[in-house]
């Protein structure tokens, strides 16, 4: 059993406050929550909404149809009432005009005003929601106590209680599970993964939708004993992270496409100096400023080839809040093992969606530094020695007495000194590029779910994981033999499972949140396999499972 709630209004009306309290309560009670946000790039006004999907089973995607709309303004009613299920309900203020029996008008503003602060209409609505679902308001009070300063606390609690009394219960809740889960979004999970991996240096420039990684890291910087810097620009952010990594600590930077574009030259610097680095690109629609607060998967081909010249790199697409934690932690080990930049490709949808997630197992995370023993000589270290296994030895400055380390953005010899020698150039290029091959041993094949004899194979990557997962269940219920392959590790492209399932399927369809079908292009380039159709969306709003299901059913690909 599940319900879908939409809370909408203008920026500044307190949507986030009440959705946050409601989500936390539901998750804490043992329900599964999937909360997605749709917000504009403004602080006041406009139209924002949060959609909360809750149930007594794990949820992987948002859903188009609604049981309850909490409308803090009239626009919310107009924009979303068509998505209301037949016995759904709209909760709004008396002042909002809407025909139909399913509208529950209560004096949200009137109650708030009578308590002395009309801005508390959101808290009145929150109280009403608790009653509609038969939830005890005690939990909401705990949150209000934690959230509000003394002078607002009492009046908000009164507002909550009056809202609660203004309606009667409308929905029956299923039995919650007894398992304790966490409610976390993709950026928080990514930051937590970085902290677990011993990331000691995080530098970034604020850019939506990546900023909340930095925010979380900053909050725990002192406790974790690490350093977090709000850099003057993205160029400084990545260059200083490279400096920190060269000097011996795990370092990371994060941004969105625009900032990543500024980091590109330094990405090559990490490549040529063989400095381990983790870079998160939380994608939003481009080009240029694009749609600041919305989602897209259009940086795949860009990050694979970004920067002049050729150098090894790895790209991992984060698919959900599990990946965001475990893959971020893994990225640090891979970056050090191969002395390469590892790019984490996330997006606004994943970064902002709060999802009930099994608590992370910190015993599954390991910190492997792959540093070399003390050399038998003194003086300049042969940092770029051509070795039989293809990986040069690595120590950091002042790690050992009387041994020093040189790194250079030019082509260089085994010591890191500038060189234009033909043989040195060839051996250094080969040494670096060989790591692309070595890396294949560590690649994780894409996840596959669905029929083992698929007529139809859907291929996706990153955050369309959840929508694809649920779409497959809907298709299966209709007797359609389909399967889905969803890539996490995406560069270099893992091919075993891809070749296996493409061989079985009659039709291959790529499902992506972009216009050109970038994964399909990559697959064609790497394997010669061509998709027969595409399900694409590039309006900045994430496709849900029903969108994919409908496109498949209607042959719209």
């Amino acid at each position, binding site marked *: 059993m599940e319900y879908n709630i939409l809370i909408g209004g203008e920026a500044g009306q307190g949507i986030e406050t009440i959705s946050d309290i409601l989500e936390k309560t539901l998750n804490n009670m043992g329900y599964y929550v999937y909360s997605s946000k749709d917000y504009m790039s403004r602080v006041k006004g406009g139209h924002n909404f949060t959609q909360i999907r809750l149930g007594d089973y794990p949820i992987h995607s948002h859903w188009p149809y609604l049981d309850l709309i909490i409308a803090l303004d009239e626009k919310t009613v107009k924009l979303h009432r068509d998505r209301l299920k037949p016995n759904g309900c709209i909760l709004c203020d008396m002042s909002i005009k809407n025909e139909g029996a399913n509208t529950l008008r209560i004096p949200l503003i009137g109650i708030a005003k009578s308590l002395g602060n009309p801005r508390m209409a959101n808290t009145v609505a929150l109280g009403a929601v608790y009653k509609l679902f038969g939830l005890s308001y005690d939990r909401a009070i705990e949150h209000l106590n934690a959230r509000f300063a003394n002078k607002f606390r009492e009046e908000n609690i009164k507002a909550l209680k009056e809202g609660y009394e203004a309606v009667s219960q409308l929905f029956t809740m299923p039995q919650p599970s007894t398992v*304790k889960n*966490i*409610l*976390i979004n993709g950026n*928080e999970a990514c930051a*937590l993964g970085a*902290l*677990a991996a*011993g990331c*000691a*240096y995080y530098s970034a420039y604020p850019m939506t939708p990546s900023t909340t990684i930095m925010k979380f890291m900053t909050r*725990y910087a002192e*406790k*974790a*004993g*690490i*350093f977090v*810097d709000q*850099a*003057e620009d993205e*160029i*400084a*952010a990545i*260059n*200083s*992270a*490279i*400096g*920190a*990594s*060269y*000097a*011996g*600590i795990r*370092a990371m930077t994060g941004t969105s496409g625009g900032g990543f574009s500024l980091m590109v*030259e*330094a990405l090559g*610097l990490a490549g040529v100096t063989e400095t381990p680095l983790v870079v998160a690109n939380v994608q939003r629609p481009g080009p240029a400023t694009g749609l600041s607060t919305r989602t897209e998967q259009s940086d795949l081909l860009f990050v694979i080839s970004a920067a002049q010249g050729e150098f090894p790199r790895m790209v991992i697409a984060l698919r959900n809040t599990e990946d965001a934690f475990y893959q971020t932690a893994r990225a640090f080990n891979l970056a050090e093992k191969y002395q390469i930049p590892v790019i984490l490709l996330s997006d606004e949808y994943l970064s902002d969606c709060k999802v009930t997630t099994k*608590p*992370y197992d*910190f*015993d599954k995370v*390991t*910190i492997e530094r792959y540093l070399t023993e003390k050399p038998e000589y003194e003086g300049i270290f042969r940092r770029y020695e051509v070795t039989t296994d293809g990986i040069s030895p690595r120590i950091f*400055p*002042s*790690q*050992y007495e*009387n*041994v*020093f*380390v*040189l*790194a*250079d*953005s*030019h082509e260089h010899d085994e010591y*890191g*000194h*500038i060189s234009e020698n033909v043989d040195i150039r060839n051996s250094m290029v080969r040494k670096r590029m060989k790591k692309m091959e070595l890396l294949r041993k560590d690649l994780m094949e894409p996840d596959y779910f669905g029929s083992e004899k698929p007529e139809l194979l859907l291929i996706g990557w990153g955050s369309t994981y959840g929508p694809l997962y649920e779409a497959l269940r809907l298709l299966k219920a209709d007797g359609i033999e389909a399967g889905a392959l969803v890539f996490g590790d995406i560069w270099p492209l893992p091919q075993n499972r891809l070749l296996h399932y493409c061989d079985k399927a009659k039709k291959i369809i790529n499902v992506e949140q972009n216009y050109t079908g970038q994964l399909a292009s990559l697959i064609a380039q790497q394997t010669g396999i061509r998709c027969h159709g595409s399900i694409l969306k590039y309006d900045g709003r994430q496709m849900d499972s029903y969108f994919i299901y409908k496109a498949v059913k209607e042959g719209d690909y």
Partner: protein
Amino acid sequence: MKNNPFHYDCEISWCPGCGNFGIIEALKETLEELGLKPYETAAISGIGQAAKLPHYINSNGFNGLHGRALPVAMGVKIANKDLTVFVNSGDGDSYGEGGNHLIHNIRRNIDITHFVHNNQIYGLTKGQGSPTTALNQVTTLQFDGVKSSPFNPLAFAISQDCSFVARTFSGDKVHMKAMMKAAIENKGYSLLDILQPCVTFNKVNTFKWYKDRVYYLDEKYDPYDKEEAFKKALEWGDSIPIGILYKSDKPSFIDRFHHLKEEEPLVKRRWSPQDARAFMDEFY
């Protein structure tokens, strides 16, 4: 000189007579006289003739991207506060391509020393105007004269209350060493602008041009007097003051973070995944 541990025997690609030779010799002597060892120091640079310096000295070194030496130096210093970190780069790298990092590392007051080899011209790219080339000066590119006014790095740094602002001249080794020593010893971001002739591309600001104009700030000069410092920084032309123009005592960037200041360098600490487990608690 051969006994200096910082001395590295190698082929140097600077033009004969370049001011860089004097600067690197002074630097090596200064580092040795400060009792430092090569493995305890880090020479960071960007791109340009001056920026080749990490290749010509025994030290840890990072020869990074054009204009980006300061962020790298910052990362190195924060990772290992025990290292003596200095940047050697030119006027184009430091004041042009890397201008934004200059502003913000003055604000941070990160404990690094920035030696700007200021020859008022682009050398590596063959003679174009730099941010410090005089207005109307003819160059290999600006055949009709430079149309932008020169950037005044010292006046700028003083205006931003930079903790150490000094100028020296590559033709005066004794003075250069004194300035380098004071700059390294300052616990904060130190800007040392080193006037230096470019024998190949700058036919205006020659060795003689500088020699005829520079004069020492006398003993009575108070570098803590901001107004006076500003006046000195604006003095340019027939007479050019060299010395410590400005000092401002304030905590270095690392000292502004309690845990970075009090505990051992980040590079010496060890983390375990379990250390982060408690940070998950807020999500229940």
